[in-house]
C-alpha cells in the first residue's frame, strides 16, 4: 500500500515537471505560432497585435500558470490554426488511437507471451529457432521501415490490405502489427528466458513430487513466476506503443492522437501540441503506475505481511 502511494506521488511530480518541459520546449523550437493565424500578407504590426492577443509576449511562467489554470477549469482551448475545439479533437482522435493502441497491446502480450512460452517449451527445436529469429528481426528492424515494407508487400504487391485509412478492421491490421512488432519481439524473448529460468527452479521438482500434472506445473506455477518480470516491464511496453504511435499513425494516415500531435507541432499550434503531449505523457505515466501496482499483485514478496 505504501509502495502504491509512493508511486502515485512520484507520478504526479513527473507529470508537473514534464508539463513545464513540454511548455518550454515547444516555445524553444522556433517557428512562429502567429503565422498560422494571419494571412501571409499581414504587416509586422498586425502580427504583433495577434501575438499580444494570444499572450505570447507574456513572461514564460505567466503563460504557463495561465494555461495550467485554464486547463484545470476544464477550458482546453482551441486550435490556433483552425479554431477546432480541443476537447472534441481529443474525443474523436482519442477513440481511434485507443482502437489502435489496444490492438497493439493485445498483439504484444496476447501473441508475444504464447510465442515465448512455445519457444521455451520446445527449446532448441525448429519452433524455438524460428520464433527467436522472428524476435531478433522484430527488435532490429526500425518500425518506420517495417511500415514501408509492409505497405509495399501487402498493399502494393499482394493487394491484400489497404495501405492507409481508417478505421475498419482491414485498415487496422498493418498499423497495429507494425506498432506492436518491437514490443512483441521483446515480450517473446523475455517470456522465453523467464520460463526457462523458472523451469529449472527447485519448486518445480517439489510440485512434480506432489503429483501435479505438467500442465498445472508449467501452465500455472512456472507461468505465474515467469509473469513477474513480464508485468514489471509492461509499463515500458505501453510507453513504447504510445511513442511509436506518432510515427505509425502518420505513416498509415490513421487519424489518432499521434497524428494530431505531429501536425500541431509542425504548425506550431501551441495549445494543441501542449495538450496532446500532456495526454500522451499521462497515458505513459499511468501505464507505468499500473504496471507497478500489477507487479505488486503478481509478486507477493513485495507485499507487506
Amino acid at each position, binding site marked *: 500500500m505504501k509502495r502504491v502511494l509512493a508511486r502515485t506521488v512520484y507520478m504526479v511530480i513527473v507529470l508537473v515537471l514534464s508539463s513545464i518541459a513540454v511548455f518550454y520546449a515547444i516555445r524553444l523550437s522556433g517557428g512562429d505560432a502567429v503565422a498560422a493565424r494571419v494571412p501571409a500578407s499581414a504587416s509586422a504590426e498586425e502580427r504583433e497585435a495577434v501575438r499580444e492577443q494570444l499572450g505570447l509576449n507574456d513572461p514564460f511562467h505567466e503563460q504557463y500558470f495561465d494555461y495550467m489554470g485554464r486547463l484545470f477549469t476544464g477550458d482546453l482551448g482551441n486550435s490556433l490554426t483552425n479554431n477546432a475545439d480541443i476537447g472534441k479533437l481529443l474525443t474523436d482522435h482519442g477513440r481511434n488511437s485507443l482502437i489502435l493502441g489496444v490492438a497493439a497491446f493485445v498483439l504484444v502480450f496476447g501473441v508475444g507471451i504464447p510465442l515465448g512460452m512455445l519457444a521455451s517449451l520446445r527449446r532448441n527445436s525448429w519452433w524455438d529457432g524460428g520464433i527467436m529469429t522472428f524476435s531478433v528481426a522484430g527488435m532490429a528492424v526500425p518500425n518506420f521501415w517495417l511500415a514501408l515494407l509492409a505497405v509495399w508487400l501487402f498493399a502494393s504487391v499482394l493487394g491484400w490490405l489497404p495501405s492507409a485509412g481508417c478505421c475498419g478492421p482491414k485498415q487496422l491490421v498493418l498499423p497495429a502489427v507494425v506498432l506492436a512488432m518491437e514490443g512483441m519481439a521483446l515480450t517473446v524473448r523475455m517470456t522465453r528466458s523467464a520460463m526457462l529460468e523458472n523451469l529449472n527452479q*527447485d519448486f518445480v*521438482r*517439489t510440485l512434480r*513430487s*506432489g*503429483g*501435479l*500434472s505438467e500442465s498445472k506445473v508449467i501452465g500455472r*506455477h512456472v507461468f505465474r513466476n515467469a509473469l513477474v518480470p513480464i508485468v514489471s516491464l509492461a509499463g515500458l511496453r505501453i510507453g513504447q506503443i504510445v511513442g511509436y504511435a506518432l510515427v505509425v499513425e502518420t505513416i498509415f494516415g490513421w487519424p489518432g492522437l499521434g497524428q494530431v500531435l505531429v501536425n500541431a507541432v509542425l504548425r506550431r499550434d501551441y495549445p494543441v501540441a501542449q495538450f496532446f503531449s500532456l495526454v500522451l505523457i499521462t497515458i505513459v505515466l499511468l501505464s507505468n503506475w499500473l504496471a507497478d501496482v500489477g507487479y505488486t499483485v503478481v509478486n*507477493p514478496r513485495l507485499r507487506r505481511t
Partner: protein
Amino acid sequence: MTENGVNRPVTAPLLSIDGLRTMVSSRRESFDVVRGLSLDIYPNEVLCLVGESGCGKSITALSIMRLLPTPPVRVREGEIRFRGEDLLSLSGKRMRNIRADSISMIFQDPLTSLDPVFTVGDVIVEVIRAHRDMSKEEARSLAGDALAKVGLPDPISQLDSYPHQLSGGMRQRVMIAMALVLDPDILIADEPTTALDVTVQAQILDQLVKEQRERHMAMLLITHDLAVVAAVADRVAVMYAGEIVEQAPVDELFEDPRHPYTQGLLRALPKVSTTRRRLDPIPGLVPSLQMMPPGCAFAPRCPHALDRCWTEQPELATDRDGRVFRCFNPQPFAG
C-alpha cells in the same frame, strides 16, 4: 520389522530397487553416477542412506520418484518394484498418481523448494485435488489439519502465507505437511535438515520420526550426518561412489562396521574426550566418476587393499554372520 532387537526384516519389502544404473550423458561424455544399486525398503522402517556429497544418494532418490533432471541424467538400467509394478516402466500418468499419494519426497532447501508466488495453502490444496475428488473447501480443511499435525502454530491462517513469510523451520514443516497430507506409504527425505539451524534440525528430525511412527510408514532418510543416523535409523545403507558398500541394522553398523569405508567414516567422527586429538580423516579423494578404477572403487584409499582389489570388483555379499558388505579383505574394527 526392525524394532526392538529384531535385526533382520522378516516381511516382504515395500519397495525394492534392483540393479539401478543412472547415468549422466552429455555430448562430450557419459558416465554412471549410480552404478548397479540394489536396495530394499521394508514397511515401517527408517532406512538411512549415507555417504558423502556426490556419491549418488540424491540421484537414487530422484530415480525412485522419476524426477531426475532429464536430460542430462537418466536411468539406464534396473528395476524399482513397488506393489508389483516397476516404477521405471509406468506411464507418466500412473507415476503421477503414485507421487505424494504412495511415495512422497521432501527436499533439502525448503525456501527454493516452495513456489514463491503461491500461498502454501494453495499448493497443498492443489496436491490434494490432484489425487482426491474433493471440493476446494474440503481440501483446504484437510490442508489445515496437515499443517496443524506437523506442529505449525496457527495453522489455518498459515494456509494463506507465502513461503517468504515463514522461517526455515516452518517452511520445512510445510514441506512435510504437503508430503504427508495424503498419507503415503513411503517418505523419502533428502537431507531434510541440512539447510536448517542446528536447533531447528533436531525439531524437524523429531517431527519426521514421530510422523513415521504414528503413520506406520517407511522412511528413506538421506543424509551425510552420522549423528542423525545414530539418532533415527533402524537400518543403514552406506553408499560410496555410486554403489552400496555396506548395509546393516544401525547398532551393528556403529558397533562393528565391516567395510573399510564405513570404518573410516566412523573413525573420522570427532569424539568428546579428555585429551584433544586430531581428527582422523580418510586419506585421498573419491575417484572421479568419469574414470572409475577397474577394481573396487575404494581400493585407492583403502589401508587393507589387496592386489585383487585393484583388478576385481567385489560384490555386495552376505557373510557367515549375516553381515552385508562389499569387500574382499574385511578387517576387524578398532574404533
